[in-house]
């Protein structure tokens, strides 16, 4: 029987709306639009996204049997997501469509070479229920939680489901301030692996520490296997008392950090799930993250299995220390 990998997280559509009108007004930090008017865009692109969908793609593109549990609306955007999932050989819970909400959407109001103003809707994934999670396969090798469910009892239920099927759990906590720190820490301690960004780790710990100190702080708090990622610098992982660090490779030209944290977490978890090797997991996670940083929009840059093979690791790129 083949191993099944489960991913729980949001699936959404990013809309990139490009216009000079989305630049800030002179000496202001606002975009100002003529209300009641029609504004012709220079370009408009729809791109499937969402932490759950992108993470599932990281697993699926490694040839792993991947099942995504998510929640969308009953609309064109949901159909786009279904189409991508089918193309990537990702199976989705049959209950994912609900007519209570529109599919989660982010509209990026962008002008060339500028920051974006993002309008976002997350009501769809927020309605994820325990019943949706029960559609995870009964036999599960690994469960990756890419987006924290809004309903905390759903999160706890996911851990129960994983335990019942003897699956290991990785989690990428984001928007950590949306959940009580006590409950979140209790949950994280029950996971096999926690992958978190430097910004979220600082919020969670309440301390403005450097990356290695954050990893150690969370490790001391009871998270046995922790990886902290900084999109501008690299990552630090601690497992069984050993500290592993990586830097970003020097040739990387960062274009857009969108999705880098999500694919690092999924890449790290995926590789660790396969090989239980932190060094390989860091290499794979960083490779995935750097790939998506070099293009606008994460989906197209997620690496396929053969693409990783030529990647070599510099001697001073990866270091391993014992705490």
């Amino acid at each position, binding site marked *: 029987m083949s191993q099944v990998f489960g991913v729980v997280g949001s699936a959404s559509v990013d809309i990139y709306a490009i*216009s000079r009108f989305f630049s800030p007004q002179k000496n202001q*930090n606002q975009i100002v639009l003529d209300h009641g008017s029609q504004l012709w865009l220079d370009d408009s692109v729809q791109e499937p996204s969402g932490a759950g969908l992108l993470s599932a793609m990281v697993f699926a593109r490694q040839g792993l049997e991947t099942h995504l549990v998510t929640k969308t609306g009953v609309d064109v955007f949901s159909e786009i997501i279904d189409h991508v999932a089918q193309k990537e050989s990702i199976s989705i819970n049959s209950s994912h469509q609900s007519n209570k909400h529109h599919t989660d959407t982010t509209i990026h109001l962008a002008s060339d070479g500028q920051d974006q103003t993002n309008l976002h809707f997350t009501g769809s994934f927020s309605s994820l229920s325990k019943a949706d999670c029960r559609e995870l396969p009964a036999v599960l090798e690994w469960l990756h939680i890419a987006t924290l469910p809004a309903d905390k009892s759903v999160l706890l239920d996911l851990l129960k489901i994983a335990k019942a099927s003897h699956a290991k759990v990785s989690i990428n906590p984001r928007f950590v301030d949306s959940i009580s720190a006590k409950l979140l820490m209790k949950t994280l301690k029950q996971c096999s692996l926690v992958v978190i960004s430097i910004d979220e780790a600082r919020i969670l710990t309440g301390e403005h520490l450097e990356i290695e100190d954050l990893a150690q702080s969370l490790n001391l708090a009871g998270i046995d296997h922790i990886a902290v990622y900084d999109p501008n610098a690299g990552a630090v992982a601690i497992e069984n008392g050993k500290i592993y660090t990586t830097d970003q490779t020097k040739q990387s030209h960062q274009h857009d950090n969108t999705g880098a944290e999500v694919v690092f977490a999924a890449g790290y978890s995926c590789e660790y799930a396969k090989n239980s090797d932190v060094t390989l997991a860091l290499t794979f996670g960083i490779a995935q993250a750097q790939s998506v940083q070099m293009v606008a929009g994460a989906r197209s840059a997620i690496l396929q299995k053969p693409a990783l093979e030529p990647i070599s690791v510099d001697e001073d790129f990866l270091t391993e220390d014992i705490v």
Partner: protein
Amino acid sequence: MKDRIDILAIGDVVTDAFIELLPAEAEINEDKARHPLLCMTYGSKIPFKDAIIINGVGNAANAAVATAALGLNTAYMADIGDDRVGEDILQALHKHGVSTEFINSHAGYKSNYHYVLWYGADRTILIKHENYSYKWPEIRDYQKPSWIYLSSIGESGGVIHTQLVKYLEDNPDTKLSFQPGTFQIREGTKKLQELYSKTTIFTANKEEFQQILESESTDEKTLITKMHQLGPETVLLTDGPKGAFASDGNQVVFMPPYPDPKPPLDRTGAGDSYASTFTAAIADGLSLAEALSWAGINSMSVVQKIGAQAGLLSKKEITDWLKKAPSSYVAKVI
């Protein structure tokens, strides 16, 4: 469509995604001319409440649905992509009783999709249209429309204007009602001279009149007279909540707005419903004053609902509203 077409609407069809902004996440300021400006913090992440999708809209589509609701045999000519959005558009139009026989589906193209930033009762519409290669359809003799209703069409829609002028020359008993969209307004009157000369009913709002005529005049009568000189027999000038003026070249009639039963929810489609209802009433043989009274009621009803079509009324519903109209809702010759 097996019978003669009462109205053939022509113009781009789109799907509108209404993005409902939260009150705390944006603000309305005014420019020097007291025009509302939607302001949002640059570079921020702004949550929105929900997205409501409305398929098969646009100036001409709204007009087609309005005239179908009024009981006219309505067909619609537009262009869509061969995608799910296009399928949903066709389904929505069928549901409203509009014939889609003249809608072209373009393989490999996307259907037009607008994002409507909805804040308060007003909205800012983000638009990107596909560059379809427009083609005039084959209209059989028995289908020959009594009226053609032309409205907003994309930048590459010039071929339709040329073909339409030819069709009107070949079929002089078909009348044209013209409610120009953005690109048609930008084209100016010289480039579309023949179209204006063949127009029976012309409709635009006051600002559009000024733009089309390159006039700074704020006097409605002056603007209407200038428009008549370009060819239209009947001219309708709408002025938002202030009311509307209609002229047949002999007299100008003013109609105040029908009082809103509740504060307007969304002003999308108010102008479309006014223009198309006015056309339908004239096509039905009503006078300028009667046509204005119909148009004001349908427009009032539309702004009470979300989107341009949900509030459109049948002929009976309009006459019911007319019966209970306040004494102030009466047309005046000026």
